[in-house]
Each structure stands twice: as structure tokens, then as C-alpha cells.
């Protein structure tokens, strides 16, 4: 590892963090356009974050030290994940870029958030946590298995870079039932994990529909800013992972300038396509009833399991 390479990896980490509110803004904009609205500027999330971070926090008198710590833990988890996500270049800065650790850092995020939801002592937070837990019991195994499928398929061990590289260099030969099934499972997981429609509506605070927002209800000011940024980062990380782990073609494997430019362009197209997909889904599909969700999530789990079984059977 030489200096320019380290610089590049740091730049890609910073870029990933910086563009994450933009991605959310773009999704909102596309959604608004699809619904024949003008919609807010795509830079609105930055303004929201700036506003929130300047405000004072209002904390429930029942909340303990943990309530104040949770936003920091969530933020940390997402920063750690961002550091291990290959964005435009397959090498990453994090020395712990292990896919199993990745799944457990997601769990860390979720666990902290569930505890934070229980802190305020109101019914909303508890409801959010309870539903989140129900979803996570089904999502997390699907996430684990679909990522493990990639590891087993490529035989590249658990290093995120190695997995990405070996699919990338295999070219079209890497397209197999296992990859497609695992990819499908990952997409459902992405939608569910980021609490988008049809699993949850990120725009409402209605008691009957909310999962993720319920847990955030007690947060305000800086705490809310961190939680929001962490959620935006989570969505971006998932989208980027879909683009660089499951379908990594185009991602730069060498440091050459044309490769990097191409990689940037390809990544932009991929992210826009996924953003469009999410916006389309949110505009056309109604939110599911809470107890319909398990069916969909079980489907994702079954897909991931089939992906892995297909590796050994076919």
C-alpha cells in the first residue's frame, strides 16, 4: 500500500459519507416527480441536518446515559461500515474488512437503536422497537446468508475486497443462479433494512405504520441529526454494496486514471438506477400491513437459502 492508494481510499470514504444525504434527496426528488409534484431540492437533506445540529436537544426525564450514547454508537457503526465499503475503488481503508464482521456491525446499529427506542418510556418507541425486532429476526439471517453465498461462491474467503475482485474479474461467467438469487434476497433485505415502502414509510409519524420513525421519536437536535445521518448512510452503504459486491462490474481494480473515471461514471449510473427503482417502488406499491411483512421477509430468507443451496447442488 502506497501513499496515493491510501489517499484514494480515504477520499472514497469521505465521498461516500458526503454523498449519502444527496442520495436520499435524489430519491425524494424522483418520487415527487413521479407523483407530479415539484418536490424539495435534492440538497434539502443537507439543510435539514444543518438545522438539526444547531438546535438544542430535548431529552425525556426518564432517559438515562444510554439514550445520549445511542446516536454516537449508531454513527460509529455506520462510519465503520462506510470505511469497509468499496465505492469506486475495490480496496478499502478498513483493516477489518470482513463480511461476517459487517453483518455484526449492522446488528450493533440495530441493537443500539432498539434500546434507544425503549428509553423514552412512551408507547411509540416501544412499538417501533418491537416491530423492528420482529423484522430483524427475519432480515438479518437473510443478509448473513446472502453475503455468505458470495463468499462461498467466489471461494475468496471473507474479505470484502477479495469477493468484489473475484466477481469482477470473472466477468459474465460470474452470473449464476446463486448470484442472482442472493442478489434478489439482498435487494429485499435492503428495502426492509432501510425501512422503505412497502415495509415501512420513512415519511410518516403515524402510529399505525411506523417502525423506524417510532424509535427516533424521542430524539431531537444533535441526537436526531446523527440518527438521520446514520440512516442515510445505511441506505447509501446498502446501495453501494449492491453495486460493488453483488454486481461489481465497472468498479476500478487498479489505480489508473481512466479506470477510476469509468468506475465513477458506472457507480453514478448504478446508484441512480437503484434510487430510481426505490422511488418507483415507493410510488407504485402500497405499504404492507405489519403482519404481512413476515411473508415477504421469509421470502427473502428463502431466496438467500436457495442461493446458497444452489451453490452445492448445481
Amino acid at each position, binding site marked *: 500500500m502506497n501513499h496515493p492508494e491510501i489517499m484514494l481510499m480515504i477520499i472514497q470514504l469521505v465521498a461516500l459519507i458526503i454523498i449519502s444525504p444527496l442520495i436520499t434527496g435524489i430519491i425524494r426528488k424522483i418520487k415527487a416527480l413521479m407523483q407530479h409534484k415539484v418536490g424539495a431540492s435534492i440538497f434539502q437533506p443537507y439543510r435539514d441536518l444543518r438545522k438539526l445540529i444547531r438546535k438544542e436537544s430535548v*431529552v425525556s426525564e426518564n432517559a438515562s446515559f444510554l439514550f445520549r450514547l445511542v446516536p454516537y454508537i449508531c454513527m460509529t457503526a455506520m462510519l465503520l461500515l462506510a470505511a469497509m465499503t468499496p465505492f469506486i475503488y475495490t480496496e478499502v481503508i478498513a483493516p477489518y474488512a470482513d463480511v461476517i464482521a459487517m453483518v455484526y456491525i449492522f446488528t450493533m446499529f440495530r441493537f443500539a437503536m432498539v434500546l434507544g427506542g425503549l428509553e423514552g418510556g412512551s408507547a411509540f418507541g416501544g412499538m417501533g*422497537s418491537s416491530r423492528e425486532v420482529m423484522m430483524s429476526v427475519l432480515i438479518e439471517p437473510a443478509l448473513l446468508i446472502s453475503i455468505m453465498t458470495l463468499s462461498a461462491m467466489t471461494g475468496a474467503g471473507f474479505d470484502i475486497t477479495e469477493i468484489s475482485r473475484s466477481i469482477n474479474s470473472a466477468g459474465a461467467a460470474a452470473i449464476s443462479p446463486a448470484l442472482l438469487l442472493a442478489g434478489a434476497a439482498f435487494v429485499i433485505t435492503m428495502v426492509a433494512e432501510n425501512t422503505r415502502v412497502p415495509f415501512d414509510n420513512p415519511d410518516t409519524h403515524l402510529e399505525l405504520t411506523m417502525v423506524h420513525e417510532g424509535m427516533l421519536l424521542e430524539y431531537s437536535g444533535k441526537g436526531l441529526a446523527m440518527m438521520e445521518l446514520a440512516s442515510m448512510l445505511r441506505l447509501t452503504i446498502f446501495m453501494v454494496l449492491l453495486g460493488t459486491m453483488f454486481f461489481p462490474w465497472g468498479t476500478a481494480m487498479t489505480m489508473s486514471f481512466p479506470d477510476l473515471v469509468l468506475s465513477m461514471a458506472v457507480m453514478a449510473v448504478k446508484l441512480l438506477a437503484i434510487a430510481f427503482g426505490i422511488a418507483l417502488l415507493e410510488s407504485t406499491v402500497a405499504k404492507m400491513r405489519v403482519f404481512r411483512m413476515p411473508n415477504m421477509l421469509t421470502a427473502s430468507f428463502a431466496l438467500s437459502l436457495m442461493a446458497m443451496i444452489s451453490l452445492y447442488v448445481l
Partner: protein
Amino acid sequence: MELFNVTLQNETLVAVFFAAILIPALAGIALGTVFRSAKIANVIAGLCIVSCAAGVFAYPLCRSGLSLSYALPVSSAVGDYALAIDQLSAVMISFSSVIFMLIVVHVVKSTSDSGCRYSGLLNALFLAVFSCMAADSVLVLLMSWEMITLVTFLLSKKGNNDRARWMFFVIAHIGGLVLICAYGYMAHIAGTSELSQWKGIGASISPVASMVLIMMIVMGFGTKLGLIPFHAWMPNLYATAPIHTAALLSTVCSNVAILVIFKSIFSYIGVQDSMSVVAFVIIGISAATALWGALESLVQKEPKKIMAYSSMENMALVVLCMALGMIFLNESPVFAKLILIAGLLHTLNHSVFKSLMLMTIDTVEDCTGEKNIGRTGGLAKALPALAAVSLVGVLSMAAIPPTNGFVSEWLMIQSIMGADLQSKGMSLLIPLVLAAVGICGMMMAASYARLYGFIFLGRPRSEGMKEPRAMKKGTIIPLAVLALLCLGMGFFATFIMDILATGVISVTGVAPSPSYRSVMSGEMLPLVLGAFIVVTVAVVLLVIRPGKEREVRTWGCGESLGKDMQYSSIGFSQPLVRVFHPFYGDTTVVRDTKEGGKKTVHTEFTEPFVRYLYKPLGRAISSIAERIGKTQTGNIQTYFTYILVTLLAVLLVVRML
């Protein structure tokens, strides 16, 4: 060896070691039977702590190359009463002694379980645990295993909990009986009672016989570990026994069982090619146990029952690792090493976080008098130190990095995934096992979030929680030590793995090279990840400093919130109960109350195993007994007839032969 500037002979050192363990413990037992005063109780517990402290030296002494063995000067018809400590036993003894010591310290400090009788029995339990792990003679092994059962049975008396105790006693004895048969047969084929001579005795019997033996051993010890269907005693006993007994059962006694199963399968009997059938069966049982424990723990109302099911789940995962180790051993030995290390590491980690959590629950009960998580809440405000310490324990149980629980699950998953299996049938096992481990892990995390959230977070749900008694001085010390161990073993897991690797190699006889590290992904990952987490939290705290803050009452939609106007622990797990409904055996009962027109709704959970297996079995046995009872008339003429008939029958049979 130099010690305190006095050059000690090696034999003397070994003698001092054994004397320091045996004499205080025996003295403690003697004092416990004689005295009844509260002051002596602390002395007796002190003796137990001295014994435990001596036990901690097992590994350092073994490491320095001493052969730790001792035999009583008397011997029995079956063989000597001998103790010998090999490397792996030494690790387990040292480690279990630390846990045992911390639990005894907590016994002394807390008010709940004290008295000469209890402390005396603690000494007996330590002696039994030590001699079971150090046993070099099959007689000592079986006797001390039996003693563990007996002593824990006596230790678990509290109030009127005879039903739970006897259930434990009977189930544990069924296991004990199976073990006596298995080890008796093994002693017969080995031709000696000395366990250190037993290496590879399984080679002289047929694979089928070996498989039956392995099954019997797993089943026998499984009764204590709570493998299904032998787990029915656990929730009830944990809930009603003194909590320190539960802590000892769940940690130290489980360690013993795991160690002996491990040695029996991999050293004494040995794994051959054709034994994958039994491994499959064990994998099935343990995966089912883990899933069952995870599912049931979600709906329990008592924290202790949650812990019981969690013990079941964790121990099942360890057994699962061993069964996978049996399969991997022939196909890819280096992964067998890795998964066995993962299993043993998980055993050690489990005993740290489980004793921490059980003692936390005891302290909570001590301070507030609440036993139901439906009525607790908001303790983090009143007891912040306890909340902080037990947060580490909960994170560790839920396998959140950088704690030790994460390291062992991470190791487990990578060794399951990494193994390169030749036959397709076996490799199909991998996705299924992975799915089971993944689902269990997540469900347990949900269950622990519920446990912690409803005890420490939110608002108090009953009067006792609002102003809890202050903790007794010093109760936090053993808990804090355990919490530090949780973190330390998470950061420095690699060193423990190295120590365990030596033990695994010497027991299984796998070639030391290639080393397990060569196939492991991220040798130093626990440390690196831990360091990164700490640094990142610090950096985020520095960059985004906590700003101005205003404390207000939680918004209650315009109302002031009553104590029950928050999410309940039952409601919290209700969505999951609905998703996994068929497994729970939950029934909703609507009853009329005495006040006219009002009804109450209860959801009741009965363990399906109790309802569909234990109860029918019990009924069948009672009805058979009743029928046999009819023949016992008490009339002497009838008995003469029986004798005559029996005699005739025997004579006829003998004649025909």
C-alpha cells in the same frame, strides 16, 4: 522452581497445589455441617474462595511443565482414585475457578443466599467440579459428576420449590445412569480405569458401537446442558432456585460437561470416517435445541427463565460445534481445529457473560423485589453503575462487537463457512446450519434487548422500581470484574484461541500444522475492530460534542403518562409470537371477572414438550404402576402363588435351553 526466594522441589509444588485446593474446601464442608451461625458462613465462603484461588494456578503450573497428578493412598477394586490435569483441563480449571470465585464473592456480598449450609455446599460443589475436570480415573469422574448433581440439588432448595428440584434431580439422574453404562462399557474395552490410558480405545470396537457410545455420552451430559427433550427442568429450576445456584449450574457445571464430552468424543472414542450419522443426529438435536431456546426465551416473563433458555441455546451451539468438528475432522482437519476452538471459546465466553447477567438479575431482585419484567423498568436512572456493567453483559450475549460474545460467533460462522467438504450431501448441511445459527443469534439478540430494555430503560412500572434500595456495598465488584473480562476477552481473544489450540491439538491428535491461523480470516480482527470502535466513538464524540440539553417529561399526547402507559414486555414480543405462533403452544384465555360484564384476557404459554411429552409419559407410567399395583394384594397366599409360578416358569425356560 523459584517461589518467594525459596527453591521448591517440583513434587512439593504439586503437593502444595493439590493441598491448597482440597484442604480448604474439605474444611469448609466440615464447618458447614457443624456450624449454623451467620459469622461462620463468611469464613466458610472464604475457605471456598481460597480453594478457587488455588484452582486458578492450574494453568500457570501446567504451563511451566509440571505434571499435575495426585492419587489417594487408598484404592478401590476398580482402580485408584487418581487426579491428573492435562493442558486443556488446566485451562478449564483455571477459568472455571475464576468464575466460581467471583460467584462466591457475590454470594458473600449479597443478602439473598447465605448461611453456613449454603456456603458449605459451595465448597462441596467446587470440590466436585474440580475433581470431575481433573479426574484420571473413571470412578472419580462418575462419582464427582454424581456429586455435582447431588450438591446442586441441595443447593437449589429455596422456599417450596420441590417440584422443580425433583424434576431436575430425576432428569439429571437419567443422564447419570446413561453415563454410568457408557463409561462402564468404555472401561471394559479399555481394560483400565485410568483415563489417561484411554486414548483411541474406540478403534477396537465397531463404528456402530462407537456411535452408540457417543450418542449416550452426549445424551447423558446433555441432560445437564438442556438439550431437547431434556430441557424441561431448566426454566423452572432457574426461576425458583437461589440464583447463585443457577449461575453455577449454567456456567461452571456446563464447562465440566463440555470438557468431558469433548475429551470423550475426540480422545477416548475417536472419530472415524463412518461416523457421520451420529454427527448428523447431534447436529439436528443441537440445532433444534438452539432454535427452541431462542424462541421460548422471547416470551418469558421472568428474567431468570430468559437466562435458562439462553443457556440452552448457547450450550447447544457449543455441542453443534463439536458435532461439526466430528464431520470436519476427516474432511478438512484444520477447520475441525478451528470450529472446536470456536466451541471451546464460546464455552468460556458463555460462562463469563452468563454469570454476569444472572448476578445482575439477582442484584436487581435484591434492590427492588421484582421478579417479573412486566413490572420493572427505569432502573438505569436509579442504579447507573449496575446498568452500565450489565449493558456490557447484554452486548456480549447478543454478540455485538467488540465483546467476547461476538468473537466466538464470528469464529463459529467462519469455520462453518470455510470448511471444504467433499461430499455433496454433507455440504448441504452448511447452509442449513448457518441459517440456524443466524436465526438463533438474531432471536437471542431480540430477547436480550427486551430483557435489558424492560429492566433498565423506560419508566418504572411499579412502586418498588421508583426508589430501589441502594446496592449493598461491594456487590458491584464481581460484576465489574466480569464485565471487564467480557471486554478483555473480546479484544484479546486471539491469545485465548492460541491456548485452546494447544489443548485441541493434544486431545484430538490433529497435526499441529497447518496452524488454525492459516485458515482464519483476520487473525487480529477482534483487536483491530475493537480498537477502531473505541477510536471512532471517541472521534465522533469530539467532533459532535453533546450540546445544550433540556429535560422534559415524555410527551404523552397531551395526557400525563401513567405507569402502565408504555409498551409492555408481553406486547413487545407479541409480533414475534404471531409470526412463530405454531411453536409456542400459546393459548389465549378469556375469563369473566366477578364484577359484572368485565372480562380478563390472558395469554398463557405452556412448554409444548411438557404438555405433549412429559405429561403423557407421566400419565402412562402412573397407569402402568397402578395396574401393577393391583397385583400387590398384600395377601400371603397370593405371593406364594407368584413364587410358585415364577419358579415353574424359570425351570421351564432353563429346561428348554
